[in-house]
């Protein structure tokens, strides 16, 4: 809980809030006085947000995006964990597959989105593929670490009681590695959301990203900013929820 409070403290501290308020005021006045086309006043953006939200225009894209995100994440978690566990358990798998995982973790996978678009068409598959490309490697990496990081004393203990490979995996390695799995989940979700929005903006038709492109191209700036606000909130809520979930699971276990 103290970590949570500290995180809240980063946002709820006076200097930051003052600077934020000043930015908001500058934005409002710049928006009112200057060229309305590129910078609508803050109040107009907030009004547009409320308008869009209550009109229900946002509901369908939000739902649509969420389903794509969850599908992609489910695949990433399943396949990524399996590959990661294999790498963590077997040196051979590690040497053979490790370089690919490491490359996928740091490479700009977004470069493949145009290829996805051509092969899968401008539908959900492309977004799901992008979510997977963004999230699967970090899940695999953390799963490998989770399995690998078991305290050798625990392993020895289990072996001395005659536990086999699979018993040890199920009873010792997986539970002991829970913090890393959770870290993988959190990072996977954070990256998956970026993948989702990236995919959607680049496909330019679907979900929330589609709205960005739609309002962006017609220079409907107040609505564009409102959608950006929505995306930011959406990402923040997901990451926050997964972080919270991880904390709860870990404190529950410690009890």
């Amino acid at each position: 809980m103290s970590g949570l409070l500290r995180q809240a403290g980063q946002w709820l501290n006076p200097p930051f809030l003052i600077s934020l308020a000043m930015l908001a005021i500058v934005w409002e006045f710049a928006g009112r006085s200057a060229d309305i086309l590129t910078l609508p006043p803050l109040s107009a953006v907030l009004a547009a947000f409320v308008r869009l939200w209550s009109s229900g225009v946002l509901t369908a894209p939000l739902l649509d995006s969420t389903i794509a995100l969850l599908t992609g994440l489910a695949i990433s978690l399943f396949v990524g964990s399996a590959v990661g566990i294999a790498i963590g358990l077997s040196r051979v798998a590690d040497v053979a597959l490790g370089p690919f995982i490491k490359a996928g973790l740091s490479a700009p996978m977004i470069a493949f989105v145009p290829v996805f678009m051509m092969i899968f068409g401008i539908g959900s598959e492309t977004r799901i593929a992008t979510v997977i490309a963004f999230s699967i490697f970090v899940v695999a990496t953390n799963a490998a670490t989770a399995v690998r990081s078991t305290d050798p004393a625990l392993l020895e203990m289990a072996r001395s009681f005659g536990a086999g490979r699979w018993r040890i995996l199920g009873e010792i390695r997986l539970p002991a590695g829970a913090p890393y799995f959770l870290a993988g989940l959190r990072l996977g979700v954070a990256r998956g959301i970026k993948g989702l929005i990236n995919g959607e903006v680049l496909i330019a038709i679907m979900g929330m990203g589609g709205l960005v492109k739609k309002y962006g191209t017609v220079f409907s700036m107040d609505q564009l900013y409102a959608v950006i606000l929505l995306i930011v909130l959406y990402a923040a809520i997901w990451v926050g929820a997964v972080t919270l979930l991880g904390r709860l699971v870990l404190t529950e276990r410690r009890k």
Partner: protein
Amino acid sequence: MKSNAPARQAGARGHRLAALLTDTFWGRLTLRATALAIVLIAWQMAGDDSVALLFPTATRTFQAFIELMADGRLPLGLLVTGQALLAGFAIIIGIGVPLGILIARFPLVDRTVSPYFTFLVAVPIIAIVPVVQALLGLTFAARVTVIVLFGISYVVINSAIAVRRVKPELIEMAASFGARRLAILTQVVLPAAVPGIMTGARLALGQALIGMVVAELTIVGAGVGSLIAELQGRFKVAAVLAVAMTIVLIGLCLLSLVEMLERRLNRWSLTK
């Protein structure tokens, strides 16, 4: 114990082969080459060149790559795109490192500025691209801005953490020998923070590469973005895949380069 000796021997033999493959240079090379070969063969078999818009085979992708290199369009596009990356990365380091130091040394700066960078890390930056485009147009500056937005927070945050983690007794030691603030900064704090700053630079480069692709695909200029758009329009899947893989491979090379530099500069931090 004696009864399962043969089984243990067989197991030992398997272990020895595995050890040979994983613990010697040539063994690892063989294993990795085999893995790569399997991936390439699987790609070749999964590909289907009969109809456009299907997943292309490895050979056709490679052919497309050769063609794009031969007619000079890919090298030219990469050169133009690379300029934006270079400018963006220079700005990321040039602004990010000093800002990180300021954050670490002045609590007021920390409290005022840090939340914005935490925010930039959490948020899909691509959502802000239309704003950049609206403000700066379809320009080089717009593309550089996108790259900076993608990467800078990683350098800022890591530099700040690195400076903050400098052992206070080292600073105290320098002060006791009469070092002034500037000397303490340049002789103690900065060198001690180099490993952390380099880690930030590597992460930032990874993000800047993503930003570069995003900028190319959304704020289309003369770089690989326009090349991809044109190839996409003509349904050349193999060519688009070739461009994508080239970008990814170049990106990986740049990242390894920074990682090597990181390790060189960090040698002392590994000895202790």
